[in-house]
């Protein structure tokens, strides 16, 4: 019994300590010696991150890119997910695993090609271009979630609606939409985290005007200010942890394995 809890507590410490240290590092000052905790606390590093690293601008970029990516992949997900979920397609499973391929292969293997194509189309260093690159990873997941949602749609309710004289548009807004809303929401949450955290594809398509949070944090590592980097990391990781906290009761862990992030 004691052994069991030791194992679990050790695991928790192993998992949590990086975040705790990032958090402490981001508010600590003069923490150079061999001390467990910093002698003085400060918010200076956050001020640095905001004023010197121009984090508000970076955050604006991130939100625009992520918003575009989520919107595009949700639309793709609704259309193609409907076809996958409601129609009998020959070789459906094979088609679906094909669609999911971009999530199973490390993005670095095709990121070079995307970069070259986007250079040619002048899409590099534009919000739309980066968002489009993110769609590569987001859309497959949206299609997967939406197809499962449409498959679970209650046929009898649709029939009942049309029998009661509702036209197709009315049926869609009053019967179908409420039923698929949870699916759309979960697809949006997952595409949001994928796009928000996406690093490799952004690294290949970003420019000076379109720094996103992961890229800015990575560049800060190279600049060598660990305190400021930590402050940025805290700002960056909060939404993901918040989402995990909110959804962990609703979502099965297996779903997380399949979809939370690419490679």
């Amino acid at each position, binding site marked *: 019994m004691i052994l069991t809890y030791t194992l679990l507590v050790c695991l928790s410490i192993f998992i949590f300590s990086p975040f705790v240290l990032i958090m402490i590092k981001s508010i600590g000052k003069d923490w150079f010696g061999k001390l467990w905790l910093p002698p003085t606390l400060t918010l200076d590093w956050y001020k640095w991150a905001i004023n010197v690293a121009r984090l508000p601008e970076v955050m604006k970029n991130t939100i625009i890119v992520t918003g575009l990516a989520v919107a595009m992949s949700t639309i793709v997900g609704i259309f193609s997910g409907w076809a996958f979920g409601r129609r009998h397609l020959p070789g459906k499973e094979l088609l679906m695993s094909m669609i999911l391929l971009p999530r199973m292969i490390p993005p670095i293997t*095709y990121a070079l090609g*995307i970069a070259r194509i986007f250079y040619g189309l002048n899409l590099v260093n534009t919000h739309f271009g980066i968002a489009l690159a993110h769609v590569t990873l987001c859309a497959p997941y949206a299609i997967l979630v939406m197809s499962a949602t449409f498959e679970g749609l209650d046929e009898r309710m649709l029939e009942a609606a049309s029998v009661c004289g509702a036209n197709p548009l009315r049926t869609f807004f009053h019967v179908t939409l409420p039923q698929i809303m949870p699916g759309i929401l979960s697809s949006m949450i997952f595409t949001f985290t994928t796009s928000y955290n996406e690093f490799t594809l952004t690294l290949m398509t970003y420019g000076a005007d379109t720094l996103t949070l992961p890229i800015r944090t990575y560049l800060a590592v190279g600049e060598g200010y660990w305190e400021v980097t930590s402050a940025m990391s805290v700002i960056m990781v909060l939404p993901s942890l918040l989402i995990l906290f909110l959804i962990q009761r609703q979502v099965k862990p297996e779903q997380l394995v399949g979809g939370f992030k690419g490679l």
Partner: protein
Amino acid sequence: MRHLRSQRREWLTTLLLLLPGFAVFLGLFVYPFIITIVLSLRPEGQTTGWTLEYYTSFLASEHGRQVIVLTFFLAIATTLFSVLLSVPLALVLRRKLRGHRFFRAVPLIPLVVPGLIGALGLLLVFGSRGWFNLFIRDVLPFIHGPIAVNYTISGLTLFYVWLYFPYTLLTTLSTLEGLDPGIEEAAQVSGANPWKVLRHVVLPLIMPGILSGSVLTFMNAFGAFSIPLVAGGNYRPLSVDVYKQIQLFVPAHWSQACAIAVIMGVLQVVFLTFYMRVLRGRKVK
């Protein structure tokens, strides 16, 4: 006739609806991949001509071989340690202990957090002034510290395990929970001690789960990019080597980078096929 026409219309709408999905797949995945392959076969900076030089030179060079061996070593070591960590943990987590909800949510964290942040935090924890070395100094003074973890091969493996073991753990756990408790009870009633039940009954039954989970861990570790980029130091697996070809050289070595990317992609597809086999085997049982 009318029926036929409506059927055809139905087909047409289906195809139309599938179009966006396939446009994304073909335009943003297949086409870039083809471009990557073509670039890898072109002499650097030229638009005509074919050459296999970048493949042969990479595979024949000492550097290339080191990179490939390192990538495989990291992926295999990560998988092994993940299995060693996951099986006992899954067995423990299955017994709904007090606070199991919390302990169950803990391994989900590395799945949500970007590898970049994980790597930064781990570098802080295991640095020469990090908590790990302070712990050794204050609690285990008989070990002469500080122990170097960051930028060593074992440290890198540890970071990989932190990020990728949940894949193995979660699939093992879900297989374990799908087991019929009657089987274990039967073994116990027949006089097998707990160790024997575990060894001869439980482990063989959850083996497919462990296997499919560890293939996931393996594939993720094989393709890992941000962790070795930030915490790899001099150790560069394939993914980082692709990026360095572009970042380090002016003008960038596009052809060489693409050739390495293609090698990586081909290997990954091979693993993926293997993984699908494993999954299918699971379904049949």
